[in-house]
């Protein structure tokens, strides 16, 4: 591996990211899969970095799932997206920050379409006006939330309590970075580092002391794909994709996977459980599995947030071995205690995958 070669490419794929004043668009599924992540993003930006972020309750789905499942036509999607921009405009913001990769991809696609085919923009304006009497401006700056964390990765590093380092050996943790397909595969120039060697997550890992693993199936999809997981019988495609990636990364003995997509961490996490139950295979050391985190979770860990506040108990692959490696202080008993110390109840024990 010639790192200078990658740096050359990273130089070619830079993007402008707004400094402050973000209009925040939540992700439908992230709120359900790993709700701690979005909360952590807001906490980091507002409390740690003192940025102005507007979390708008009127915001709806971007229709991405339906659009990619061929249920909603593009025109409808454009109008919904236009409504989001209208909400942003009326709230007085110009920098749009979606939390979901698919939303990010969709916003990018639609804005590009409007540029390429101005008549569709006019049509959308008309549709939106007819439907809601709203008007909108295209955002000055569109960035994914991981772009924002990337932008402030060094500030986070300055405030860090922990590093992505094995505390006992001093070795950097080996980390697999996985970007969502819709982040830059459609528009390489809209992603930091492009599509082939994306840097958005690798940059965070670099800054926070970890070392990034480049393994052969790095580019492969996690298998999430809306149509695959939505239909039960099709989930075989999805799990096979994830398995291919696990098999490919296994020789590198990764300590964790960091992702920036709603689906990827979820499926990397759940499929490890499913694979262990279906075929008895586990990845990672001692049957622990390889924890798959969102970048907010990793940032939160680095900043010393309580893992249970980050929502790490929602992962099926146990996070404790990694926390121990990093030397993070946590109270194991609190794992399944909710707010106000209510006992949430322990999940059923997996057959093969280790459980703490």
């Amino acid at each position, binding site marked *: 591996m010639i790192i200078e070669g990658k740096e050359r490419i990273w130089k070619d794929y830079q993007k402008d990211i707004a400094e402050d004043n973000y209009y925040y668009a939540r992700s439908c599924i992230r709120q359900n899969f790993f709700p701690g992540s979005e909360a952590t993003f807001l906490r980091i930006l507002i409390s740690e970095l003192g940025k102005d972020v507007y979390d708008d309750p009127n915001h709806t789905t971007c229709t991405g799932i339906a659009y990619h499942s061929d249920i909603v036509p593009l025109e409808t999607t454009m109008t919904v997206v236009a409504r989001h921009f209208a909400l942003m405009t009326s709230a007085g913001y110009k920098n749009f920050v979606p939390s979901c990769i698919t939303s990010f991809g969709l916003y990018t696609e639609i804005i590009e379409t409007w540029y390429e085919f101005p008549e569709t923009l006019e049509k959308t304006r008309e549709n939106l006006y007819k439907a809601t009497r709203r008007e909108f401006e295209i955002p000055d700056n569109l960035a994914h939330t991981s772009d924002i964390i990337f932008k402030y990765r060094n500030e986070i590093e300055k405030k860090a309590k922990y590093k992505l380092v094995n505390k006992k050996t001093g070795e950097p943790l080996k980390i697999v970075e996985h970007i969502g397909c819709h982040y830059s595969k459609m528009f390489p120039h809209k992603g930091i580092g492009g599509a082939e060697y994306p840097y958005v997550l690798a940059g965070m890992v670099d800054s926070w002391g970890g070392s990034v693993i480049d393994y052969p199936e790095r580019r492969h999809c996690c298998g999430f794909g809306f149509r695959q997981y939505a239909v*039960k019988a*099709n*989930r*075989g495609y999805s799990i*096979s994709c994830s398995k*291919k990636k696990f098999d490919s990364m296994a020789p590198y003995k990764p300590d964790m996977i960091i992702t920036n997509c709603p689906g990827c961490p979820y499926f990397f996490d759940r499929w490890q459980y*499913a694979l262990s*139950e*279906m075929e008895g295979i586990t990845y990672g050391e001692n049957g622990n599995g390889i924890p798959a985190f969102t970048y907010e979770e990793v940032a939160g860990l680095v900043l010393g947030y309580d893992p249970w506040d980050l929502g790490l108990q929602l992962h099926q692959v146990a996070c404790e071995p990694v926390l121990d490696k990093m030397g993070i202080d946590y109270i194991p008993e609190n794992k399944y205690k909710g707010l106000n110390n209510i006992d949430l109840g322990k999940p059923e024990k997996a*057959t093969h995958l280790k459980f703490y």
Partner: protein
Amino acid sequence: MKNFGYTIQNDRQIDYDKNDTKLYDFVAESEKSIRTCIFCGTCSATCTASKFTDLSLRRIILYLKRGLNESLKKEIESCMLCGKCNLACPRGVNTRNVILNIKRGIEHYEL
């Protein structure tokens, strides 16, 4: 083992490194001309047996080169060795000897 209502798909990918090319090597050793096949398909198109079955010598040679021995075993059974392919081949591949040697190789390695 639990059943979640879906199965893990076998990869359709040919993993060349895992494939066993010993049968191809066996055949190429005694009939070098097989190496010059360019997969044009002339042989398959003229084949007497292909009228009735899925037999395609082009595909058989391809499978052989890729070490997909299991796939070709069945297919080659219907060849009647009539030799039309030998006459049609633009590269002068000695197709009948190729076929004989594939069969010999299958016996030799007990595939």
